[in-house]
């Protein structure tokens, strides 16, 4: 009998605000340790939290983008536990009444359909600091620059049935969050962290005991960790054992997980309402205003690219991966409106391909949309062939010379003058009398041979359309 995998995901996403959730300290990444702290985020006696308004707005925006309900009154609670990077001995979080409840994300399925994955809630909370142990003997070092940075925790329903679905959900969520501009979502900087609740069951049976997998900081590791955990649980059950409900830490180097259960105690977070913060109230008007300012979402953008520009769903998908790439594409089309498909091909295949090879981001592209459009315009007006354009493009990636100057310098200007083309054709015919004979005797297939020879002789500059047309004429004899 087969096993069914059940996965629910908790994503901690850093909200990109200038200041922390509850104080006026900067959130800038990479500062000297403890230089971005104050009495509030250090939990010093008598200090009180005041919530950042932008963190609220961005959480609401995210909630609207996943079609969720915004609670016009939500509450903050204290989650109590001791840890050296948690200054107050409690984390301010939203437990009983979160700001956002009940949304969903649709992911594409293999058969071309969609699967709807539920999102239980999004609540706001503050991040903890960082504990450092490496290279230290018997001590740890604590940096509290991150303490109090605003997070939203996005909790899904246990709706995913495979590691692939989990990854599809995460990628879609990651893309959405970046589109909304609510988070840098840089996984390496810990701005988008994922914990996975994993269990297995026989189809149709109630949920099995779940474990919580932590410390997976890339999509690849998340997939690995889930797959390994599923196998581990199946093995335990098939050997007659029972899965223990616990948190497990993923070790991406050893490719294994280990239990985080400390001997002292099970956690008892003793949540209770944060007495320093009255309820958070937002008005329907404020929510509506945030909704009105919502940018186009990836799905909407993809569909628009397909209909407005006639792109394939594949190209539309590639070009809408990020807001920057979609914007880049649209400025390219604006400068080369004649052929949006050509724009898509060039951007997706030539530009993004080259940038990827060079390990660069679109923002670091040496060729601007306007310059690429100049090149595409030269293809459009038959100045150069598409093939020659690729040579020009290579050169554009290396130099700032104008497109025309490069074409000129490389002598790639397309020859569309029939006299000049005729001269080349006659030369080729004179050099290959046997093939001319053969063609005239009915071997039509030799046409390709002549085209190739003429193009070669013109070093690729002859206009291929005209070459075809003149060859037909001249070979007739």
């Amino acid at each position, binding site marked *: 009998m087969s096993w069914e995998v059940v996965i629910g995901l908790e994503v901690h996403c850093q909200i990109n605000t200038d200041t922390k959730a509850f104080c006026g300290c900067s959130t800038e990444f990479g500062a000297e340790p403890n230089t971005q702290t104050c009495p509030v985020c250090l939990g010093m006696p008598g200090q009180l939290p005041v919530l950042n308004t932008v963190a609220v707005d961005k959480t609401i925006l995210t909630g609207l983008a996943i079609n969720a309900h915004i609670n016009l009154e939500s509450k903050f609670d204290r989650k109590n536990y001791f840890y*050296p990077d948690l200054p107050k001995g409690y984390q301010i979080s939203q437990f009983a009444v979160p700001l956002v409840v009940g949304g969903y994300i649709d992911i594409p399925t293999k058969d071309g359909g969609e699967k709807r994955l539920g999102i239980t809630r999004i609540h706001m909370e503050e991040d903890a600091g960082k504990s450092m142990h490496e290279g230290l003997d018997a*001590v740890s070092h604590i940096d509290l620059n991150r303490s109090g940075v605003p997070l939203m925790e996005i909790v899904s329903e246990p709706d995913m049935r495979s590691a692939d679905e989990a990854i599809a959900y995460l990628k879609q969520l990651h893309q959405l969050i970046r589109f909304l501009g609510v988070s840098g979502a840089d996984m390496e900087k810990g701005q988008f962290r994922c914990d996975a609740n994993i269990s297995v069951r026989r189809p149709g049976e109630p949920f099995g005991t779940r474990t919580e997998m932590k410390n997976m900081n890339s999509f690849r590791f998340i997939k690995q960790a889930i797959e390994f955990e599923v196998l581990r649980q199946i093995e335990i059950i098939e050997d007659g054992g029972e899965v223990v409900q616990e948190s497990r830490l993923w070790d991406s180097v050893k490719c294994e997980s280990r239990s985080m259960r400390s001997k002292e105690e099970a956690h008892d977070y003793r949540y209770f309402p944060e007495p320093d913060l009255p309820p958070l109230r937002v008005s329907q008007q404020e929510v509506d205003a945030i909704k009105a300012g919502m940018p186009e979402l990836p799905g909407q953008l993809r569909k628009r690219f397909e209909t407005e520009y006639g792109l394939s769903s594949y190209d539309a998908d590639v070009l809408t991966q990020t807001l920057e790439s979609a914007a880049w594409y649209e400025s390219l089309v604006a400068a080369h409106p004649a052929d949006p498909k050509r724009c898509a091909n060039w951007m997706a295949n030539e530009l993004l391909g080259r940038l990827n090879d060079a390990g660069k981001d679109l923002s670091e592209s040496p060729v601007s949309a306007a310059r690429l459009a100049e090149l595409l315009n030269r293809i459009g007006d038959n100045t150069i062939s598409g093939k020659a354009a690729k040579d020009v493009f290579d050169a554009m990636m290396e130099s700032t010379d104008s497109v025309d100057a490069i074409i000129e310098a490389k002598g790639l200007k397309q020859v569309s003058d029939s006299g000049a083309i005729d001269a080349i054709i006659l030369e080729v015919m004179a050099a290959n009398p046997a093939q001319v004979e053969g063609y005239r005797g009915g071997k039509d297939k030799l046409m390709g041979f002549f085209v190739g020879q003429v193009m070669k002789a013109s070093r690729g500059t002859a206009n291929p359309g005209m070459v075809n047309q003149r060859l037909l004429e001249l070979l007739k004899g």
Partner: protein
Amino acid sequence: MEIDVRKVAMLSRIRLTDDEAAELGPQLSSILGYVEQLGKVDTDGVPPTAHPHDAAMPLRANVVTNGNRREELQAPAPKTESGLYVVPKVIE
């Protein structure tokens, strides 16, 4: 009311000597025994009060107001090194 004083002390991260535990147990039982009168109050449908007034939370502008005060703020710290707080090794 029996209370597991040691468990609550561990949650609270307070070491208890045997004598303290022996003294605190009955004291907590007596306090909580008194508190149990709350159980007799009919609170069906009564909303809980967490804040004395029915007020909404004020919010703060997203503007950096704090600079680097590390030296001053770490002055009361029991142990620091190169601007970092030092604690006995944290084992995850």
